[in-house]
């Protein structure tokens, strides 16, 4: 029974991924990408990885879908923007085919080499799950995934947050000139009512996930994604204007989580290795970092949608 479920899931994943990539029609590709995200969340649930299932449900199925659909709307004609033609099909001449063939050959060789290298790897000498379990008492939290993310390998998470922040800075450097005018769509009173109903619950759930992260699946990334989704929903319901340019407060909010993380790391340098918490304070410090990250990640992810989204509102 379970084998059948997993097999079908894998087939559906492969099919939707392939169609999303191969479809010449962008609208269909975006829809299939959303479908792929939902199937991926189910796959993580089947793989006993509820942390990633949560993140995938929030980011893959919700936020990314909205971002891609918004981008799609700006690419289409009828928005007042100079309409780009539908993506040019490469002419199916012999040179083009040879080009495709050589790319496929190189990619295939690379994949084969990677697979070979993977099978040549020696058996790991350190049993990581046991190591994590043995050190849980000193981690300050009860949930192994959170312990790994923010304590044992906290520096990975620190750098990940830095990457997200840099991505947003990259967006800022593009500036409003890069944005095509968005069609805000007709005002819809029902939508405003929905936003007023859902947004408080989203913020509540974000707080719950942040708190839950200490002892069960949840944490800053999932909570931040929920906050960002709340901001996007408010914006789509025309209750929250686009961010024309980040003011001082917003800049502080965007960078704050990373700065808190960095500050804690700097303050603890005397402990020896990077981000080695004293066991007595570990729980509190992790909660502090996660709270900062929740707000900042929420703002960063929302910023990807909201920054310069209102470029057309200026004359």
């Amino acid at each position, binding site marked *: 029974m379970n084998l059948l479920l997993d097999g079908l899931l894998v087939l559906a994943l492969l099919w939707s991924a392939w169609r999303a990539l191969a479809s010449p029609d962008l609208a269909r590709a975006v*829809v299939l990408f959303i479908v792929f995200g*939902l199937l991926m969340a*189910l796959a993580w*649930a*089947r793989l006993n990885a*509820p942390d990633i299932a*949560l993140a995938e449900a*929030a980011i893959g199925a919700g936020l990314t879908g909205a971002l891609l659909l918004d981008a799609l709307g700006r690419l289409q004609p009828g928005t007042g923007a100079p309409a780009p033609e539908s993506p040019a099909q490469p002419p199916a001449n012999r040179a083009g085919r040879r080009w495709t063939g050589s790319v496929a050959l190189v990619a295939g060789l690379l994949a084969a080499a990677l697979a070979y290298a993977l099978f040549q790897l020696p058996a790991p000498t350190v049993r990581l799950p046991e190591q994590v379990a043995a050190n849980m008492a000193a981690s300050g939290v009860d949930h192994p995934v959170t312990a790994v993310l923010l304590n044992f390998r906290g520096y990975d998470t620190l750098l990940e947050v830095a990457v997200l922040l840099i991505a947003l800075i990259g967006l800022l450097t593009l500036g409003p000139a890069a944005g095509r005018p968005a069609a805000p769509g007709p005002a819809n009173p029902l939508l405003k009512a929905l936003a007023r109903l859902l947004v408080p619950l989203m913020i509540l759930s974000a707080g719950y996930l942040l708190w839950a992260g200490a002892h069960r699946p949840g944490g800053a990334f999932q909570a931040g994604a929920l906050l960002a989704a709340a901001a996007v929903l408010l914006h*789509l*319901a025309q209750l929250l204007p686009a961010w024309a340019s980040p003011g001082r407060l917003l800049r502080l909010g965007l960078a704050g989580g990373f700065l808190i993380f960095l500050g804690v790391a700097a303050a603890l340098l005397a402990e020896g290795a990077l981000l080695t918490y004293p066991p007595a304070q570990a729980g509190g410090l992790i909660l502090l970092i996660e709270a900062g990250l929740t707000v900042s990640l929420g703002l960063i992810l929302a910023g990807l949608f909201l920054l310069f989204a209102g470029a057309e509102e200026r004359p």
Partner: protein
Amino acid sequence: MTGLEAPLALFLLVNLLAALVRAARGPTAADRMLAALLFGSTGVGMLLLLAYAGGGAPLVDAALVLALLAAIAGVAFAQRAWHRDREGGDDA
């Protein structure tokens, strides 16, 4: 646990596979989007069933998040993405 949860989850997955046909065929962009929305509501049900089929309580949280966010993509579609009633370049 009634023992029905896992078979019903499988049944819902088969439903999803059938709905993929609508996502692939269209004909309007909205029809495809409807299939994605169906994936959302059925996905919530599947996550709940999987949670009670031994997946554990955290999957209920995942279902809750999915239910909270299911509206976002649909709203973004209706408000931002859909400008034409027929799409060009349909090769289904």
